[in-house]
């Protein structure tokens, strides 16, 4: 087995008296889509916040690509080491054009967390402009390149957001309920898009409620309940797992 892209070891986190995360151990394998599911209040958001540097766990470690410690790093540092994320409500730059939206993450990746160069002109950045156009094409939005991002539909904003992540070629893409609030049509299109990206071999963590999405995309599923991982395995294994059924629906088959 190759080195895991993300290794979460013995992570614990409590808030006051409430133990939100209980001895979490997870390994995210390279190239796989790893879904994390669980009923409300299971600790998914807390786990997510630990992974992106918003929360520091009480104990345990989170390491990236075998050695780099994630804990204690600020969001921009974590992105610079190779983790990109998508938010529940798509976070884009609403005042800028789609092309600009995609170019900025590329600049950020190339230039680092802070870069100041007085006399560099946008017009001369042909390489990144070209890359941006290609990435927009790969999500099917090249026709709208000059439109202002704020006027997009939610589904399109999600696609734009994905494009913004893709242009950075992240080692790990973290999707936080990517189809939240979407109608069936948009959800299907998003799944299509994500499958396309999956073919490219990108490692992904998806935190999801929608079972249709999860079972269409995931290679591995981990189930979180009351702060602990109660099951981890392939979709078929999870589907038939009585403990999971119990945790979710009191015994109803998935």
């Amino acid at each position, binding site marked *: 087995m190759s080195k895991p892209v993300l290794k979460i070891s013995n992570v614990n986190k409590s808030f006051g008296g409430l133990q939100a995360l209980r001895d979490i151990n997870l390994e995210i394998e390279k190239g796989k889509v790893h879904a994390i599911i669980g009923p409300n209040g299971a600790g998914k958001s807390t786990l997510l916040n630990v992974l*992106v540097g918003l929360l520091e766990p009480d104990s345990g470690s989170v390491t990236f690509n075998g050695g780099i410690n994630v804990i204690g790093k*600020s*969001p*921009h540092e974590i*992105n*610079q080491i190779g983790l*990109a*994320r998508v938010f529940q409500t798509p*976070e*884009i*730059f*609403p*005042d*800028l054009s789609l092309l*600009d939206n995609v*170019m*900025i*993450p590329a*600049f*950020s*990746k190339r*230039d*680092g*967390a*802070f*870069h*100041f*160069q*007085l*006399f*560099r*002109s*946008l*017009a001369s*950045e042909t390489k990144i402009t070209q890359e941006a156009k290609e990435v927009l094409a790969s999500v099917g939005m090249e026709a709208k390149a000059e439109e202002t991002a704020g006027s997009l539909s939610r589904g399109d904003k999600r696609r734009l957001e994905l494009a*913004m992540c893709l242009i*950075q070629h992240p080692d790990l893409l973290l999707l936080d309920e990517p189809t939240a609030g979407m109608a069936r049509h948009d959800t299907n299109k998003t799944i299509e898009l994500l499958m396309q990206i999956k073919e490219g071999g990108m490692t992904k963590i998806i935190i999801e409620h929608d079972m249709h999405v999860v079972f269409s995309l995931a290679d591995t599923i981990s189930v979180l309940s009351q702060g602990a991982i109660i099951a981890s395995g392939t979709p078929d294994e999870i589907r038939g797992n009585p403990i999971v059924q119990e945790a979710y629906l009191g015994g109803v088959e998935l």
Partner: protein
Amino acid sequence: MKRLMNIFKKQSDLTTILLFAAGVLTMPIWLDPIGANYPDLLQKFVIFGIFAVGYNILFGLTGYLSFGHAVFLGVGSYTAVWSFKLFTMNVLPAMLFATLISGLIAAAIGFVSMRRSGIYFSILTLAFAQMFYNLAYSVLIPITNGETGLQLRMHDIRIIDNYFSDPVAGLPSTELFGMSMNGYSGFYFCAVVLILAFYVAMKIFRSPFGMKLKAIKSNQHRMRYIGSDTRPYLITAFIISGMFAGLAGALLAVTDPLAGAERMQWTASGEVILMTILGGVGTLFGPLIGVGVIKYLENIFSAINEAVLHNFFSFMPLWAENLLVAITAPFVGEGWHLTLGILFMIIIIFLPGGLMEGFQKIKRRYLTISMKDSESTTKQE
């Protein structure tokens, strides 16, 4: 006018700056018909133009509203006058020191203020502005000379000047290697500085750095998650705009070698905010338009007094004349600030995008009208 603006936008950097330079250097010509062709006013246009262009780099691109930029105006003036007193009447060292020291102070204030955003940031800058203003009249009097203001004196040591030549009789005047800074030559010098400053601003606007600043304004949260540390960007923008302001302050002293703390009052900060917004915040040319309009109106309105008003309305019967004078008097002369305040409010309420936004709206309406015209004509055929 709008077509000219469009031309500006689409051309390459070189063409833009050449057209701009041509426009600025020929100001005495095209401003003459509207009675704005005299050196003092022209100087004000270009000096405050530098101030506003720099302020726009912060407010326009990042959206951070600073109420304290007048501090740098004052710092620039004081530094320049001290350079005149200690070293030489040559304006270049004065400008250099003023810009550098403003930058340092901007770094200090920016480092502290940028730890917060939104209202907190604005109030912090206001607090710093008041602090400096109060200090100028108290603790810093040795540097600022308090209420009297800092002026040139006969016995100034002027090390460099006095080393190279004998002291002249009377107070010397500011110069650039012999070229006087009064009148039109003063204007042309400041105009050249404006052109250079505008060039820098233009480069920033059209660079990846500028784009990142706009991204910070659009969604600072997202900016962090794509790997950019937003704080250094914001502080840099603050420092740059502070340096522009310091340079403007220095030029004020160059054309009139005295410095007073009233330059640092929050009202001066308010004025540059208005000029930037009036013209169109976030656009390259907006602030300059704003400066032009405000300073031009100030020039006219401040000069009007009751006698002029009476003269103006003298064609009416006496009771009407007196009534009209009574109504209009509060808005002119000393009442210019009242007019300014009202103008400020009108713009914020009705046209927050400034005159540039107004032009855009007119352009769009003109385009749709002409499209409808061509549609109806084709239908007729």
